């Protein structure tokens, strides 16, 4: 299955379902208006490709040539390049250099090489038993180590230190991801997988950290996965894609954050 076929499959994906973290209204908007990849998102895609499947890089991406587009000849040469690129995504040279240096640094770590020795970019599909909703995931890498089946997920970040990555992980819903992916793999293989993040900083020295999601992390993610899927099912079957005021359209209370509450007591 190609990346395009996977993306066009109508089952719900992790990144789509995560939009429920804001509201069903936002979820619906995002589904109808997919985000145009920002440079940061493109960088993530390039770094993934170079680390996981460098041999396929040229199938999806093409390196921007060094052309001065201010001249007439340059403009023509650029247009020719774009025609030749067809539906491949153009990658600026400096972005490519950085992503390549990152992948080389990551692969110099023996534990990373072992974790990434498995099956790359494997899609999984399943129907949720409680809601009947179709779900899909695509694991960066699925690796067998001893008796353990491990889902390996690569994240580029600004700070890969354990404490900072933990906070970012909760903010960006990585616990939700670990649970949804584990569910998908377990439904398809009948085995309970472990979930490991390879986190790498986007600036030199491109430091790498490997973190295993513990049970509490995945359990919390599982609660959120069930919650979001339940909301999605409700919205899809009722057509009510409600916003911040909820199904019942009720006013919310504005109070102080919990860490400030003690001040007036």
């Amino acid at each position: 299955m190609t990346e395009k076929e996977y993306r066009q499959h109508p089952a719900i994906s992790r990144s789509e379902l995560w939009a429920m973290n804001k509201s069903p209204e936002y979820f619906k908007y995002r589904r109808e208006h997919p985000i145009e990849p920002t440079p940061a998102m493109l960088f993530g895609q390039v770094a993934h490709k170079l680390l996981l499947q460098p041999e396929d890089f040229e199938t999806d991406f093409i390196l921007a040539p060094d052309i001065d587009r201010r001249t007439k000849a340059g403009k023509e040469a650029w247009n020719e390049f774009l025609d030749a690129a067809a539906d491949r995504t153009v990658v600026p040279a400096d972005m490519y250099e950085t992503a390549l240096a990152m992948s080389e640094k990551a692969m110099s770590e023996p534990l990373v090489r072992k974790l990434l020795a498995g099956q790359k970019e494997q899609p999984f599909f399943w129907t949720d038993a409680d809601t009947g909703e179709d779900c899909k995931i695509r694991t960066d890498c699925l690796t067998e180590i001893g008796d353990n089946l491990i889902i390996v997920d690569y994240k580029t970040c600004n700070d890969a230190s354990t404490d900072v990555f933990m906070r970012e992980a909760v903010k960006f819903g990585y616990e939700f991801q670990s649970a949804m992916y584990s569910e998908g793999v377990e439904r398809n293989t009948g085995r309970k997988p472990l979930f490991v993040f390879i986190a790498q900083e986007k600036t030199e020295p491109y430091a790498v950290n490997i973190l295993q999601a513990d049970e509490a992390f995945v359990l919390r993610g599982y609660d959120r996965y069930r919650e979001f899927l339940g909301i999605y099912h409700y919205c899809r079957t009722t057509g009510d894609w409600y916003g911040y005021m909820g199904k019942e359209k009720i006013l919310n209370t504005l109070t102080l954050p919990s860490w400030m509450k003690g001040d007036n007591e």
Partner: protein
Amino acid sequence: MNEEQALQKQPTQQMTAALEQTAALSPGNVWSDKAAFNQALRVADMLSKSSLVPQNYQGKPQDCFIAVDMAARMNTSPIFIMQNLYVVKGKPSWAGQACKAMIDNCGKFKNVKHVYTGKIGTDDRGCYITAVRISDGEVVNGTEVTMAMAKAEGWLSNTKWKNMPEQMLGYRAATFFARMHCPEALMGLQTREEVEDTEPRQATAADLTAALKGE
């Protein structure tokens, strides 16, 4: 006695007083009798401040209260409860060795013994509990647990079954006996081994590091 010695002695005296008070609590009434409730609360509060109770109960009067109540119901000491009750996978669970003690203490049986069968190291190796029922003098046997059963049930994914099968057979035999002949002794809780066997412990980051390094 100087002041320091007096301070050191204090927890022991408090503990003794707590145990005496617990013995006076009769089963069930801490939840309905206000005086009994308040007394158990004081005992729990005191126990939670002791450095002699297991660490996971220190500073937790709520958990100590549950232990005090369970001890009163089971006619045993709160310390026994605290030392043998673990939270495994979010569920309170008895230590395997406590199960045999609970059969001994429940008052229904005497001469409670483990009987091992089959050849050690084979699938036929098994264990059951035999005991004499006090009410009618009948010999009562628990269900036999064998290695073949452990394999078929998938318990072997818990590494303890590979590393110390004899011990695990013994624990499981006691649990089976209690479930069959004196279920009330376990107060509806599972044993630690039951919980770990049916929901094996997830490999930790340390386990995974060892596996990756091929140790």
